[in-house]
């Protein structure tokens, strides 16, 4: 039948249980040749688990799996690869000490003149070809450790595309990318689709799914809610399927008063990265910071926080000039820094939810160096429920939480610390619509309570909806500043593209 030719992947009755959690409860998924099939669901709904089962990285407890009509067990990632499945995981899986090219071809290195040797020249030129096809400029010889999150994400994409796959899975590929890279990625996806490749696409950004998706399957709490054709669906309808109720997606109204200056930066420079950055931040203000990948936004936050040394520039905190030497020092001055890469910089994965939430505020929970476990647990539990962290218990290792819930734990850490000046680097990366709305509310509440917030985000709507003022960076410089009233997406984008527009 024609149908059997069309269906590339068919998963039926998939069940997966973890101690204390049912991750998947009899989920069906069928994916057709040449379609972009979106998986949608709240944090912890089971999307990544379903995909990991397809990738052979997690074993299912029950259910069947067929690829082009053939049943597969798929108990190892290698088996899945041979079956034609290629996966971009939500959490990066690159070897930091190897080069970009070596990572892309890891395990499939082109053979050199002698067995056991690698054809380095071919390795690099092939990697270059793939990266070029993606339209990114990354030197294949650079070491992955030295790359930013967005660049690492593109390397992950390149790695997945370097094999000829029938099914390409992308688990939140865009959560670390800016508009421009997303555009490139979508071009690549469309090309793949034309070649008949099936794409499973996970994202919490609903706009994307209307741009790129053909059909969507919605999961909630490990259960299948339904599969729909995207062209026939509405945004509100999908949200209702996902959350189980209606949800207002409005940005909460802007708070009233912006108070006195708490942070002043003049001429901040870090050679080759930041060039003469100056700005001020006030009590109760939300200052948005945006720009393209590699513009230096994260680097600015790191330099302010004392994580990287600076070459020149002066900083005032609450009126007095300071030289911030270390993160520890910055925290004492009342700064908090929510990092963009939660796995590498935000969390101690082997420690529990409680331990991570309280990590930056142990002084508060200890007397004479001895921990007061009761207070600690009470505060962690308060924050975890305020942020709706989905976890079987507060003692669970963060390693076992879904990506979005991990992000909430990082947020919790800085709320727990109740820092005065908050640097938020991509605070809503990978969290679902409901949680996003909650985080927006939270940011409003924090600024109403007099906190000063610098928020870095690649999502323009987020920046536009939240900020009192917006800074735009381009190649290490500030290329523009807008008041909330005068900012438009076009103006910001023009500014982000570079000084030539100014």
């Amino acid at each position, binding site marked *: 039948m024609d149908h059997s030719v069309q269906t590339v992947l068919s998963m039926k009755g998939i069940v997966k249980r973890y101690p204390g959690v049912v991750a998947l409860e009899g989920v069906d998924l069928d994916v057709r040749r040449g379609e972009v099939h979106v998986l949608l669901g709240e944090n912890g709904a089971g999307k990544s688990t379903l995909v990991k089962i397809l990738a052979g990285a997690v074993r299912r407890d029950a259910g069947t799996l067929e690829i082009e009509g053939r049943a597969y067990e798929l108990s190892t990632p290698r088996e899945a690869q041979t079956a034609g499945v290629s996966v971009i995981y939500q959490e990066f899986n690159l070897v930091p000490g190897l080069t970009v090219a070596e990572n892309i071809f890891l395990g499939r290195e082109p053979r050199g003149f002698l067995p056991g040797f690698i054809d380095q020249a071919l390795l690099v030129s092939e990697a270059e070809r793939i990266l070029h096809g993606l339209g990114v400029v990354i030197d294949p010889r650079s070491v992955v450790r030295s790359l930013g999150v967005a660049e690492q994400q593109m390397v992950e994409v390149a790695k997945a595309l370097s094999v000829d796959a029938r099914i390409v899975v992308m688990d939140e590929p865009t959560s670390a990318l800016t508009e421009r890279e997303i555009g490139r990625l979508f071009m690549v996806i469309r090309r793949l689709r034309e070649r008949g490749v099936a794409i499973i696409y996970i994202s919490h950004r609903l706009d994307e799914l209307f741009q790129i998706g053909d059909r969507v399957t919605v999961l909630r709490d490990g259960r299948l809610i339904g599969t729909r054709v995207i062209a026939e669906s509405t945004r509100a309808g999908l949200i209702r399927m996902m959350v189980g109720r209606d949800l207002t997606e409005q940005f909460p109204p802007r708070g009233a008063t912006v108070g006195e200056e708490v942070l002043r930066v003049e001429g901040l420079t870090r050679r080759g990265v930041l060039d003469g950055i100056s700005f001020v931040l006030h009590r109760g203000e939300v200052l948005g910071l945006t720009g393209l990948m590699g513009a230096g936004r994260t680097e600015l936050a790191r330099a302010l926080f004392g994580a990287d040394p600076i070459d020149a520039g002066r900083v005032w905190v609450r009126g007095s000039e300071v030289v911030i030497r270390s993160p520890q020092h910055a925290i004492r001055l009342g700064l908090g820094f929510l990092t963009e890469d939660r796995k590498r*910089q935000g969390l101690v994965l082997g420690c529990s939810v409680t331990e991570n939430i309280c990590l930056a505020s142990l002084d508060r929970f200890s007397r004479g160096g001895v921990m007061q476990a009761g207070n600690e647990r009470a505060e962690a539990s308060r924050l975890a429920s305020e942020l709706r962290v989905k976890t079987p218990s507060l003692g669970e290792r963060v390693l076992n939480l879904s990506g979005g819930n991990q992000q909430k734990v990082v947020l919790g850490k800085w709320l727990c610390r109740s820092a005065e000046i908050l640097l938020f680097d991509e605070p809503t990366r990978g969290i679902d619509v409901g949680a996003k709305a909650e985080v927006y509310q939270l940011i409003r509440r924090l600024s109403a309570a007099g906190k000063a917030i610098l928020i870095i985000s690649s999502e323009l709507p987020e920046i536009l909806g939240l900020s009192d003022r917006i800074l735009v960076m381009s190649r290490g410089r500030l290329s523009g500043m807008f008041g909330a009233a005068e900012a438009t997406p076009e103006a910001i984008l023009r500014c982000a593209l570079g000084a030539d527009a100014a």
Partner: protein
Amino acid sequence: MNLRRAIISYARPFGTLAVLVALGGIISVLTPYFLTVPNLLNVAQQTVINAVIAVGMTLVIISAGIDLSVGSILAFAGVVLAQALHAGWPLPLAILAGVGVGTACGLVNGLLITMGRLPPFIATLGMMSVARGAALLATGGRPVSGFGESFRWLANGRLATVPAAVVLMLLVYAAAYFVLRRTKFGRYVYAVGGNEEAALLSGVPVGICKIAIYGSCGGLAGLAAVVLTSRLNSAQPIAGLSYELDAIAAAVIGGASLMGGEGSVLGTLVGALIMGVLRNGLNLLGVSSFVQQVFIGVVIIAAVLLDMLFKQRKR
């Protein structure tokens, strides 16, 4: 559900405990003398040195480091202590000197690792040689022997029927358990080992922590030197050869991960006891020391394999 979770989180130390019990069972079948009070106390006493060093090693390993210098530090601290006693220092002061020398060596390790940014393996490899050389230099290569009654009591005396050294060991473990589980410092140790960068960006004083960790490790090696010198009534500059490996083995059998972020002192105590029981049992059975070496190696590997198998089951 909660019960299952509880079992899973506690089963790990119990897993190694099961190995210990099984091992004891087998040996007691083969030789009934094993399971007598005097012999068990003997095992405990034989375990003290390794167990005390292994506590420090556990801290180091949880912080994702390694300390190869503990054996040499033990020798150096031992001869300093012995010479202080011979010079007529009062007992508490001499002991303080021994433990202090150990701590100082450990602090130097810590400084090399944090300020000097040396990998722990390299820094402590260097210290291993320096401390050994210092011990040999201080004594001209000869043992320093013969001490007063009260000093010898430390390792050989008894409180009721329990050897004083065993009491000391239990006190050390109780303190270490408290520090790791209940104090801010303990939390820092796990955080530094689990993800150093995240710890740093959360305001954890990573450098100070590491210095304190290596300092304690050296200090505990010094304390072990006190016990060893007292037991043998002699301090040998060549004492403690390959003790670092025994301590690493005890920690690893007890569930510490060389990748950092994981481990517990209770596990390490069980690990040290497993090694002690094995040596004692094989001795009782009259197994040659060459064969013993092989056995101990096999048990180390088997215990860690079991542990890993257990962890993988959870996938």
